[in-house]
């Protein structure tokens, strides 16, 4: 047998071994390797997630999530898409401070922000905060999200991810929490990215945690009402925000620029959808024709734009 043939077979076996070990690694229930957080403002720590969509390769770790440290305790903001991501974030808290976690704030129901929650729920001293419409959304969407976790993410402990919505302390308007010489304000918004978004402001540093109210580079996603979302963005633009955390994308671009870009997209959607409806263009055709001039302006446009057109069209077709 030639050396060359031997080398080929050895290569095949090595490849097999690598594939095997990678598959095993994907099923490892431990925390993620190399999970990092950085302090973007005093006491505000962020883990920057991979760019969506979620996949086995990125472990569903696609959202920017983090925590705020006071003198007394820590508030965690969002928990990632799996128990592994939640456990990694929890471990990151413990690596930064010995203070206990006293609060977890869930900005909205989407699985990349929510499904790591049970990494924190064993501790009865941790209060879970969510919008007053969050429990209903958890009840109606859980089945779909857990099915997706099992089917697409190869997660085998899906049952451990089931969220109990009765344990959530709900927020209407604004709730303030004192973390010890550091007050954070949790604000409940009306119809925006979803119908149950929360934002968090750290009053010591002015850092604004926007959840998915605002996107950076990543195409905005509409899971509510486009007209009211646009009104919310108008208000967000008036806020004097220097440092922020948005759910997806880079955190170093000017706040007002992000919002102008996002409003530009929503207004393009509304303008062209209204024209399509007036011209009798069906939804089936509109998803392929409306708003595609913005295709090169956003990441993941191909993945989410048609859905945004659908959401806009099915709202605006009822306008008087």
């Amino acid at each position, binding site marked *: 047998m030639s050396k060359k043939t031997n080398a080929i077979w050895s290569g095949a076996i090595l490849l097999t071994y690598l594939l095997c070990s990678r598959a095993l690694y994907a099923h490892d229930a431990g925390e993620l390797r190399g999970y990092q957080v950085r302090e973007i403002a005093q006491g505000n720590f962020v883990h920057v997630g991979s760019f969506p969509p979620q996949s086995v390769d990125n472990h569903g770790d696609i959202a920017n999530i983090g925590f705020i440290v006071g003198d007394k305790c820590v508030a965690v903001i969002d928990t990632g898409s799996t128990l592994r991501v939640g456990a990694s974030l929890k471990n990151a808290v413990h690596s930064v401070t010995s203070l206990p976690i006293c609060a977890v704030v869930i900005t909205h129901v989407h699985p990349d922000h929510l499904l790591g929650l049970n990494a924190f729920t064993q501790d009865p001293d941790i209060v879970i905060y969510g919008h007053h419409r969050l429990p209903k959304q958890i009840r109606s969407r859980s089945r779909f999200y857990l099915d997706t976790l099992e089917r697409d993410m190869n997660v085998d402990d899906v049952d451990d991810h089931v969220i109990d919505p009765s344990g959530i302390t709900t927020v209407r308007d604004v709730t303030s929490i004192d973390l010890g010489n550091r007050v954070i304000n949790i604000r409940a918004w009306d119809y925006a990215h979803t119908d149950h978004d929360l934002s968090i402001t750290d009053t010591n540093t002015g850092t604004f945690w926007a959840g998915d109210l605002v996107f950076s580079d990543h195409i905005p996603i509409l899971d509510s*009402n486009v007209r009211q979302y646009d009104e919310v963005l108008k208000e967000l633009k008036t806020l004097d925000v220097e440092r922020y955390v948005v759910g997806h994308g880079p955190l170093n671009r000017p706040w007002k620029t992000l919002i102008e870009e996002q409003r530009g997209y929503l207004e393009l959607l509304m303008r062209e959808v209204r024209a399509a409806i007036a011209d009798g263009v069906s939804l*089936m055709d509109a998803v392929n024709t409306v708003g595609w001039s913005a295709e090169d302006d956003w990441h993941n446009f191909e993945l989410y734009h048609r859905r945004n057109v659908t959401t806009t069209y099915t709202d605006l077709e009822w306008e008087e």
Partner: protein
Amino acid sequence: MSKRNLDWRIAGLICYLALTVSVISSANANTIEPDHSSIPEWLVIKDLMFGDREIKDGSKDVLALYLNTKLDDSSTVPIMVNALMDQTDEMFIKTLYLVIDRNPIPTAGVFQFNPQAGKVKLETRLRFEKFSFIRAIAETNSGELYMDQRWVQVAGGCSAPSGKNANDPQIGKMRFRMDDHIRLKEPNLVQFQIKHPNESTLAADLEPGYDARFINKVSVQYNGKSIMSGDINFSLSDNPIFKFYFAPQGGGVLSVRAEDTHDSVFTHSVDIEGGE
């Protein structure tokens, strides 16, 4: 070649093949279009709905089913069925069945048409709970069955209603859309839409003791005579719409009546001008 080398080869090959097959099958478990005629769910549905009756391929000359190739909102999938034959007194499509094999209620809709419409078309929007075939089956006046079908790869539409438009309290509000000038004695397209959450049992079942509220019957009449009616359910998206042909012989009143599972009845009507 030594015995040892051969063993290595075989072991490597077996492991490699096993891995390749498992990787391919897990990646493509649901993505390869299966043979539409041997889907287990369909065989049961077909037997229940049509017994031993033959269902012919209708895609060449009876009816065509259209969907976009790229779909990403499983709760709102627009579909269109076009009859490829005119409605005549001798041969017309009497009933159109929409079947989604793997939805909780596979019979998404059963629609009756009036032969006087001249042409048959139906546009509506559907929810897909799992990767599934959708089938449009036409039953003619002589009782023959013809089918066209499409494979659809979106999921979760019945269990993940979005928060969109959820703030609208105007349940039962209805609207007709049609051309400003209705042509008498010719097929005209008319769209009927109703505001209704059309709740899915899968999304609602986690609140104990609550029955999902969805529309189960729509009936559109012209001067009291049925032009389109449907037995439907939550396989249709929220705020259901229906687009179809009707051919008024003269002026009159176009009216619609919808009923839901909470015993609500919604009615609406518009005047169509006659004369000319």
